């Protein structure tokens, strides 16, 4: 095991250790030095500890247990005296440690203005717990006064905290407005007002001349002659990287320890991370890039590739009740434009800085709700030209406000049925939650809700969310597409529940984010609507993929293939003659398919109506070889011819095909009927496969022979042909009503479970109702699309709208 020594237990090196141990706990034997007599804590949360709004225990990130569990040897409270890079050892006060890899995480120390008196007792920085404790103790004296030098982030957090502790506080700031590196003057003005409202005195352009006192800091004198009596002085004017040890060890330093994008110093096997590094001339003081560095260094140490890159930063001030956000660069400059929003009554100021159609800076005071959104636009360099007018009002003006996803469920009465399979209503589920069933598994176990077909899973989760609040994290279901946040299951459910009967109704009521959907959702919604409301909804050809719209398969060269139906795989000399003539007339290539039919390939789009007309004349109809619908019913010759045949498999195949053709389904559906268990029609890898036996028919479902290969599973054994057709039809209708668009039956059955399917279909009334609903749908959709489109008016649509090449020739 390699020996890793880390000097400094700060936030960057703490994150480094977490990442290393997470990735490979056995990679290194780790020794951690820290001059402070404790491990890592969240240093940036010291301000609320100083104010009393957090306790120190709350901000400890790695306690003794953590170091022990992860076998980190801690040498806390021990200073590192030197590093010998030649011998590869670190020399601590209590002895040497050898290293294979060494990491400097020495951080930074406060910059102390070298004015007279700066070294008096009572002058403290605000860097660590010792400083915090010193200030807390000073505040315990009644009437104590504090002078905070520095009106930056840290100084102001210290000032507000000391005020809460009960001190009289004066802030001295050298610039003309507070936090001048993060705020513009307008925001600085509002911040000053806010602090003054808390009883804090703010002196701008205040230059500290000296700190005086008898053995301790008692008064700060300014260059303009102002005298400020005090009990404590807090210097928070900036930080300087702590690099003395590195310099003394011969590590290359500029203003800090120089590292490359892999966090390597110029000395072999020596690395640095955090506030003590200098990368491409930059120093670091905010936590976000430090964490990035830690991530990069962990990878580097593990021999993986990763590169550190500078990124934009955002700032917030941790003073309760002060809402301030700043990100990016907001200096004025040529080519830069401002968008400013002010609401004086509410103390709101927002300013965006735009350069070349990109947001480069944002300052917000009083209203920071959209801060992270603006920060994202800055980081990503998003082109904002199209939303420029409304940009300042934030994201909800851009994409339309999202609908409240939970209001519908919240409004349901307790007796509303949630799980239809098991008859569980909302009140039952809420009662189970109140009794302590706080996740989906527990609800299933206690109420049986969503334990059967699973269609109501999303709804049960929403009831959990409504009832439990933030303690229940809604699983992020995969939305249909970018137009909506809803998954397929919810869309299907809501189309039924809210009786949505048009695409416009779906888009509006379900809060679609686009004008009229996209190529992903439109075909799915079109199918759901026509499957659920066959009599009310009109199929929309413009929401179909090209093949289903043109009723032919588009080929890679833009021509189409044409395939007439051959019922049960049976044909006749007359049909074959007509097919041969059509092939010749339209220059088609002829192919015999695996589904027992003949395919004519290479037909031009404008010829489609004509070839369809010709085939129609010979008594043939579309084979729907292009649809998410019934394709073929493959058969063997059965008892008519075969010496093994037990039943008329061909006859049953033809009857099934005549019953089912023309129906739309979530994905394509292929059937086969074999006359005996020898299974010549390969029925056991179809969506529905029927095997004839002496005693009747074995109906099996959910096979696959495509990307996945799967044998069918037995649905039922029946005695008569009529029953076989009824069960098959009911199964397909159940699939039509419940499956997600583009799920083949085997995928759908895997989701809902064959047991559930069996249970539903075994109910005579339910099975017959399914067949009835299928028949209603067929009354609309069992029509030959070829015949309809061979009509002159419809056929015209297959021609170009105009031919301007002719016009030009005239």
């Amino acid at each position, binding site marked *: 095991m390699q020996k890793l020594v880390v000097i400094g237990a700060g936030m960057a090196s703490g994150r480094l250790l977490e990442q290393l141990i997470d990735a490979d706990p056995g990679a290194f034997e780790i020794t951690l030095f820290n001059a402070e007599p404790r491990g890592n804590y969240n240093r940036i949360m010291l301000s609320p500890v100083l104010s009393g709004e957090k306790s120190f225990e709350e901000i400890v990130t790695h306690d003794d247990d953590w170091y022990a569990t992860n076998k980190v040897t801690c040498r806390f409270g021990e200073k590192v005296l030197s590093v010998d890079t030649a011998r590869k050892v670190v020399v601590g006060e209590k002895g040497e440690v050898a290293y294979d890899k060494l990491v400097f995480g020495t951080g930074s120390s406060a910059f102390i203005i070298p004015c007279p008196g700066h070294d008096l007792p009572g002058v403290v920085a605000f860097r660590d717990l010792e400083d915090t404790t010193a200030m807390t103790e000073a505040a315990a004296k009644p009437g104590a006064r504090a002078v905070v030098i520095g009106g930056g982030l840290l100084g102001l957090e210290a000032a507000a905290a000391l005020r809460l502790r009960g001190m009289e506080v004066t802030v001295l700031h050298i610039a003309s407005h507070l936090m001048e590196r993060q705020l513009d003057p307008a925001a600085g003005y509002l911040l000053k007002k806010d602090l003054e409202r*808390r009883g804090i005195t703010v002196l701008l352009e205040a230059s500290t001349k000296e700190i005086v006192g008898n053995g301790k800091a008692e008064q700060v004198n300014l260059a303009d002659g102002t005298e400020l009596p005090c009990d404590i002085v807090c210097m928070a004017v900036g930080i300087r990287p702590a690099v003395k040890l590195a310099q003394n060890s011969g590590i290359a330093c500029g203003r800090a320890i120089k590292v490359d994008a892999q966090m390597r110093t110029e000395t072999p096997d020596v690395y640095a991370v955090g506030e003590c590094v200098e990368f491409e001339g930059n120093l670091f003081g905010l936590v976000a890039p430090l964490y990035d560095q830690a991530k990069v260094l962990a990878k580097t140490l593990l021999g993986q590739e990763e590169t550190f890159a500078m990124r934009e930063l955002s700032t917030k001030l941790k003073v*309760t009740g002060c809402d301030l956000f700043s990100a990016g660069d907001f200096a004025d400059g040529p080519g830069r434009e401002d968008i400013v929003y002010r609401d004086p009554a509410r103390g709101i100021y927002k300013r965006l800085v735009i350069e070349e159609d990109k947001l480069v800076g944002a300052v917000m005071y009083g209203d920071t709700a959209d801060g992270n959104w603006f920060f994202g636009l800055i980081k990503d360099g998003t082109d904002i030209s199209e939303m420029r007018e409304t940009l300042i009002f934030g994201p909800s003006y851009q994409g339309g406000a999202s609908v409240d996803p939970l209001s519908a469920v919240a409004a349901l009465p307790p007796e509303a049925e949630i799980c239809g399979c098991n008859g569980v209503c909302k009140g039952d589920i809420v009662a189970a939650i109140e009794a302590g069933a706080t996740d989906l598994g527990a609800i299933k176990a206690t109420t049986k809700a969503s334990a059967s077909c699973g269609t109501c899973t999303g709804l049960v989760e929403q009831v959990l969310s409504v*009832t439990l609040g933030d303690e229940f994290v809604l699983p992020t279901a995969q939305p249909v597409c970018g137009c909506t946040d809803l998954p397929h299951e919810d869309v299907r459910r809501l189309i039924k529940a809210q009786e949505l009967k048009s695409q416009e109704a779906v888009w509006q009521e379900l809060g679609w984010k686009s004008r009229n959907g996209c190529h992903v959702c439109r075909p799915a919604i079109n199918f759901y609507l026509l499957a659920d409301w066959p009599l009310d909804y009109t199929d929309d050809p413009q929401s179909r993929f090209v093949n289903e719209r043109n009723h032919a398969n588009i080929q890679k060269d833009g021509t189409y293939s044409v395939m007439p139906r051959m019922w049960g795989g049976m044909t006749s000399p007359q049909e074959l003659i007509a097919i041969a003539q059509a092939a010749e007339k339209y220059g088609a290539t002829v192919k015999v398919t695996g589904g027992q039919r003949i395919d004519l390939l290479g037909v031009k789009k404008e010829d489609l109506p004509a070839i369809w007309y010709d085939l129609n004349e010979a008594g043939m109809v579309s084979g729907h070889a292009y649809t998410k619908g019934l394709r073929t019913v493959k058969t063997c010759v059965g008892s008519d011819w075969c010496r093994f045949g037990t039943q008329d498999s061909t006859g049953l195949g033809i009857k099934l095909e005549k019953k089912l053709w023309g129906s739309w389904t979530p994905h394509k559906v292929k059937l086969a009927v074999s006359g005996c268990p020898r299974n010549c029609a390969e029925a056991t890898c179809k969506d529905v496969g029927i095997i004839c036996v002496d005693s009747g028919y074995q109906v099996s479902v959910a096979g696959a022979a495509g990307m996945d290969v799967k044998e069918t599973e037995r649905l039922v054994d029946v005695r008569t042909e009529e029953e076989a057709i009824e069960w098959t039809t009911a199964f397909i209708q159940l699939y039509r009503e419940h499956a997600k668009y583009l799920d083949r039956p085997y995928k759908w059955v895997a989701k809902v479970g064959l047991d559930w399917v069996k249970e539903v279909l075994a109910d005579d009334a339910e099975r017959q109702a399914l067949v009835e609903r299928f028949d209603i749908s067929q009354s609309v959709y069992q029509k030959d699309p070829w015949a309809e489109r061979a009509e002159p008016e419809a056929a015209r649509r297959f021609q170009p709208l105009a031919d301007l090449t002719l016009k030009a020739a005239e």
Partner: protein
Amino acid sequence: MDTVLDAAVKTFIQVTEIWVPEGDRLVLATGNYGELSAFEEATRAMSFGKGEGLPGKAWAEERPVVLKGFDGSYFKRIEAAAEAGLTSAVAIPVFNDAKLKAVLVVLCGDDENRTGAIEVWHEADGFLMLDDGYYGAARHFEWVSQHTHFPRGQGLPGGVWSANTPMLFRDLGSGYRFIRADSAGKAGLTTGLGLPIPVPQDKTFVLTLLSARGTPIARRFEIWDSRPVKVGREVAAVRTDGICEREGPLWTDDNEEPPRRVHINQGNIGKVLATGLPLIVTGKPGLTEGYDTLVALPIYDAGEIAHIVAWYV
């Protein structure tokens, strides 16, 4: 921490109830009476007109009201309270601008073993002065508090006043300049929740709940921010601070992860956002983080719910 251990502890507040206006009277919406069923019976039959009884007084005077010692007072349930051993009460009106949404009433029993504090502070001459408070056995702390005032920005009341937001203080016993801190430490007070109580008139009231380890006002406190300037246009709230005896800190370092967020209608806090009313949920451990009771109180500002504070016992 062990749940069984929790349950054995006596709580500082014994009864919490919510009264809502119905026409010109206040009627009981919900209440948590623990085992004081006789008092509950007596209460269910009651309603209060404006100015009547304690809830009616908070409504009429448009201010939080502390009442100690019911005998001979305007309190309407004196006999039932006496039988239940209840001796003091605080009524907190919830106003949305000039409109009264509800009155939250808490009742406590006099008990030499119960320590804690429920205080009402009001502004006078640029300082927050103690209006009144109920302290249980913390007599010395009560005396100290009566002789303390807070300038803007100082201490829990002064902080709430100047920031106009609820605040949660830890370790009340340590490190504040007030004599109060020392005394608070001696009284065993640990966690303090301070919140602004907006009223129709241009007056400042701050309520503080100071909880002691042995007889806690609550074992879990949460502060939710629901101002549009914080959460955007969606009706939602984010948890800005919180502490729980079982789960520890309930805040996040937002460099690491965003704060917990709930929508309108999502859980108890979502329900407060939806109804605009205070909420008591009791006897449903699945809904109250395993605790027996939750009390959630909305704080309005400029016609909207600005914050929600919640405490769990």
